[in-house]
């Protein structure tokens, strides 16, 4: 279906541009010369339409599912509206100018060196608009990048350490017992947050997998062992570069869950519908990507994000994962290894 649309658009533009516009436009004067306006005009209209129609084909922002994805998306749409209106306005004027003012015998050009008043108007209005835009988004930026760190938020939140390396994400969760201790002693949670979650023997270690809980904040201590990587969670609108030699704190709070327990494994790609039943939905397969060039397998540092419906579900998973990592005999059935919780 999408291919058909692309094909249609291409062929249409080609036909119009090359078959109709051009031969006539090559004529030295007369009606044909107006046709250049059509080439530019059609191109600009197509570009506007592409942006306008892309969401209908699903070629658009992955739906945002975190507490600040709304802020980011709102800002995106505000800017889209402003720039879109500007683009449409400029395109209309531009096409009109090309249409109306091809060279004509007997019509003198407008002899004008400019118009200071007009200049002031079209400097002041965009200026004010842009300035308001700039100032208006500072709160959203600070909210995303400078979370408040206090005992209250630390006790409620989950913490995880993510170490990027060529070419995977090594993830380390504190054990359920450790989480217990945070609940009874918020100061310990804050200390761990500040001290970047020192390793413990009972930590649950995973590769290329992140687990979070709907409605609860997850703090990520982001590190890297070798080169700069960047943790990108598209649906959470999270992106943070991992810098060698530094541990950077990133966070997000999901607003929806996407994984369901089936036996002893968890499956993503599901969501709860209005009645509270789990339904399959490919838009709910959330992934982790690396967005800072890091070598051969930069495009293959793919991970999965599991957002659990409830804290209990998460802790059940955590306990199972911990138990799998403590086996002293091979598991009886073929299990896909410690921590990997299904597709």
């Amino acid at each position: 279906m999408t291919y058909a649309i692309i094909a249609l658009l291409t062929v249409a533009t080609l036909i119009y541009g090359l078959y109709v516009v051009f031969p006539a436009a090559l004529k030295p004067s007369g009606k044909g010369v107006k046709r250049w306006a059509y080439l530019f005009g059609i191109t600009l209209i197509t570009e506007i339409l592409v942006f306008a129609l892309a969401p209908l084909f699903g070629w658009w922002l992955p739906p945002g599912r975190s507490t600040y994805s709304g802020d980011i998306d709102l800002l995106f749409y505000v800017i889209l509206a402003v720039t879109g209106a500007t683009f449409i306005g400029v395109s209309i004027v531009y096409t009109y100018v090309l249409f109306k003012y091809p060279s004509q015998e007997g019509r003198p050009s407008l002899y004008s060196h400019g118009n200071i008043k007009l200049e002031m108007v079209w400097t002041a209005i965009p200026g004010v608009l842009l300035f308001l835009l700039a100032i208006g988004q500072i709160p959203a930026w600070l909210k995303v990048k400078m979370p408040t760190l206090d005992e209250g938020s630390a006790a409620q939140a989950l913490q995880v350490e993510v170490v990027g390396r060529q070419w995977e994400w090594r993830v380390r969760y504190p054990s359920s017992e450790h989480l217990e201790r945070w609940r009874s002693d918020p100061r310990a949670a804050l200390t761990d947050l500040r001290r970047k979650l020192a390793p413990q023997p009972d930590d649950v270690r995973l590769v290329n997998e992140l687990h979070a809980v709907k409605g609860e904040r997850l703090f990520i201590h982001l590190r890297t062992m070798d080169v700069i990587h960047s943790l990108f969670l598209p649906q959470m609108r999270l992106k943070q570069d991992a810098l060698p030699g530094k541990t950077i704190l990133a966070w997000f709070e999901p607003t929806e869950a996407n994984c369901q327990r089936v036996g002893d494994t968890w499956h993503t790609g599901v969501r709860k519908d209005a009645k509270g039943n789990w339904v399959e939905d490919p838009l709910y397969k959330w992934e982790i990507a690396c967005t800072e060039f890091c070598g051969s397998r930069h495009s293959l540092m793919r991970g999965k994000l599991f957002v659990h419906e409830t804290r209990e579900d998460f802790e059940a998973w955590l306990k199972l994962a911990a138990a799998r990592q403590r086996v002293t005999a091979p598991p009886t059935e073929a299990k896909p290894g410690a921590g990997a919780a299904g597709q």
Partner: protein
Amino acid sequence: MKGSVGFRSDRETPENQPVSRWFQSPSRVLRRVALAWGVLFTIGMVGCDEAYDPELLYPIRRDWIINAESLEGTPGNINPPGLLPLQILDGRKELLGISNDFLKARDDGKIVDPRPIVDSSNLGVELMRALRDLAGRPRFPKIDVDDDSLNERLAKELKLDRKTLERGSVVYRRNCLHCHGLNGDGKGPTGLWVNPHPRDFRSGIFKYVSSSQDEGKRKPLREDLRRTLTNGIEGTSMPSFALLPPEDMDAVISYVIHLSIRGEAEMETLKELILERGQSAGAAEEVEQTPIVERVRSKARTAAERWLEALTSQLMPASQPDYENDEAKMLEAAARGYKFFTRSDQCVQCHTNFGRDADLRYDMWGTMVRPRNLTANIYGGGRRPIDFYWRIHLGIRGSGMPSFAPVNEKDPAVKDAEAREKTMWDVVAFIRLLPYPEWRAKLSKAHGIFLD
């Protein structure tokens, strides 16, 4: 107002403007461009194949073969990116001072060169043909050992049927080829530039196995390979492939086994031919007692049987440790483990200073390894207690980590099977606590062990 349409080029092209006839009719040009674009577009959107070229063949082995169980010597330094230590035998001067021991090993016959065999007209051609009969080509892989019942078992139990292998070939080409190379030699374009280097499957030796077969015959179970693929190998460039669909995972495991069987058959046949040629020195043409194709098939059968045997030979611990949920017992076990570890004839021999000061050494694939720094909290073969148990019990073949000391009545730690088992679990406890400063402190306090 004159002159608005003034400049020359706006008029008709003058007759004498020398322009190619091809451009006299621009609309014709542009129509042809549009047509070409349309054709390109249609072809392009159809897409291309993601499998190997059907014409592509597995190349014959031409690199050095290591003909010994271990290689002596101490590397001068770690090999630089882009070069393998064995390349010193090809004259790479940058490696002088780094892997000089290989020069001696070659002179002693421990490293042999297959090129005289494979570059000679009839032997090389026959070997290629025999391997093609055995293993097919990258696009159409197979394992055919010329024994129907064995072939059937391979297809069923080891999943080496054609369909799985073909799918595995596609998965391998997409995910593994650029490191592990076309025939599994670990010398793909990226493989030379990572360290530790990717595994060379052609030797048939794998490090992280859990089968209880004899050391010289041990093969991994499909489960072992699956675990490696799922977890990756920490501390190396082998990433986790847990996100592969399960069918793709199964297929690529089959394909790796296929590459390994093919490579082992090739290597063993070449070793035999080189040995025979060496023994009947001076003869210009080899008198083959056995045809090459038979040799290849028999080596493949041996390897295949070992792979099949591994499937049912997983090592189960004879007993279970008692310290799992008991901190005091764990510390006691760790203390005993520490004592065994630091015995002068045991682990510290190689894991100097618990691995912090361990020296480089050569492994069976001609690359360099270092005994693991056990305080660094990085483990290639998995970090579950059972994984530690398997590594200690079975050793890590190829890297120089020996299997655990056998029963010896004179040694209290291993005087009988039960004591041996207990000692192993004690060492496991020690390893588990070693990387964590708080636990080292507890061990110090409880048992007077000074670890830092």
